[in-house]
């Protein structure tokens, strides 16, 4: 498992409008492409040879599953901004401003008053 790799995916998708669009259109295909083009590279010349997703990590990213990512301790800032970028407008148009964010908070209610999973690596 690699929480770092999940965070790397979220970080590098969120900062690039082309990756954001691809991830919204085709999450599974984009994750594969990202691994080949970005995830397994340290920079444009150097490979990182040992990073990979588990099946659960891949599935959570394929399904934009914030409940799983929260429980897992992926960094909240990374998937919050990215998923807002993906879904806020659609939800706001259909169900009103902040509806995506408020539904998110509601679904995480079972965590209220508990210690949250750490985002430390």
């Amino acid at each position, binding site marked *: 498992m690699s929480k770092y790799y999940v*965070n790397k995916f979220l970080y590098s998708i969120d900062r690039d409008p082309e990756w954001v669009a691809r991830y919204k259109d085709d999450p599974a295909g984009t994750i594969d492409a990202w691994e080949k083009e970005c995830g397994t590279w340290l920079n444009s010349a150097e490979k990182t040879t040992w990073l990979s997703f588990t099946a659960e990590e891949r599935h959570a990213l394929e399904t934009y599953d914030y409940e799983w990512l929260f429980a897992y301790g992926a960094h909240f800032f*990374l998937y919050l901004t990215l998923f807002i970028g993906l879904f806020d407008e659609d939800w706001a148009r259909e169900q009103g401003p902040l509806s995506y964010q408020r539904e998110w*908070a509601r679904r995480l209610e079972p965590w*209220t008053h508990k210690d*949250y999973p750490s985002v430390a690596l």
Partner: protein
Amino acid sequence: MADLTAVLASTHHPFYLKATTDHSEQRMPHADEWQRKVEAYRETLTAARPDVLIMVGADHFHQFFLDNYPTFLIGKQEKYDATFYNEEREFGIPKYVLDGDMELSNYMHQGLLDAGFDFSFSHELKIDHSIICPIITVRPDADLPIVPIYTNIFAPPMPSPKRFWDLGRAIRGIIDAYPSDKKIAAIGTGHLSLELGGPRMFGDHGPDPEFDARAIEWLSTGNIDSVLENVTHESMASAGNATHGFMDLILMMGIAGPREADYVDQLDLFHTREMFMTWYPNKTEALAAAAASAAESSGASLGPVYAAKDGVSA
């Protein structure tokens, strides 16, 4: 020696510009009051007539990531680009190019090393909204050179609250010793209680109003002992999972020193409580008058604000 004419500590809210320039039917109900308070707060900086700004913030995973995350970092450039694509996307914040002040950056960096703070440094730092938000709110002309200082309030493990205070004290010592006739203002932003990605986010108030009221009391009374007694990584986490940005406000209090603030304002918004605090280390009559006139329009206090016994601001 340089003159530290003002120290500003405030929350940063990346939606301020969007909220206050929205004149559609969707304009948020708090927008007018928010704008009035921010514009009044701006007067507390303008009156200090700064020549250069030392700005404290934190990179929100825009430039820095977990492959190489600096705990404390100083920018050392003639120019700084600002605002990342995803900040434009999410918050509608425009791009800026700010001037730097190499001489003060170099002096500050050496001074920090000498004081035992082994800073990372960057010659290609791009500024994010932790520094651009206060430019928008208190210096919208973006006409002054800056010296940016970044801290880690995001990626555990983080330094202790005490370390942030000590860093503030060290920065103050360096400013006071800086051989220059410039007027310097120090501006830093962070958060009171804040939740991101968890069940308490985007509520009608910030996640922990009681923490916020106590925090404003601690800061505005300069009560570092209470801060160090009450504020730990665990207590901040229980106030909201992103509350660690409060440590940058502790740092600013460190720059001001253990003394009462001269201007204290706040606004209860959905999702967060906003705070606007100014210290005048060498308060003149003109500065006192400016703060008083700003407070007339904002309703700010010209001294400490105490938490009521039940924890909410009196």
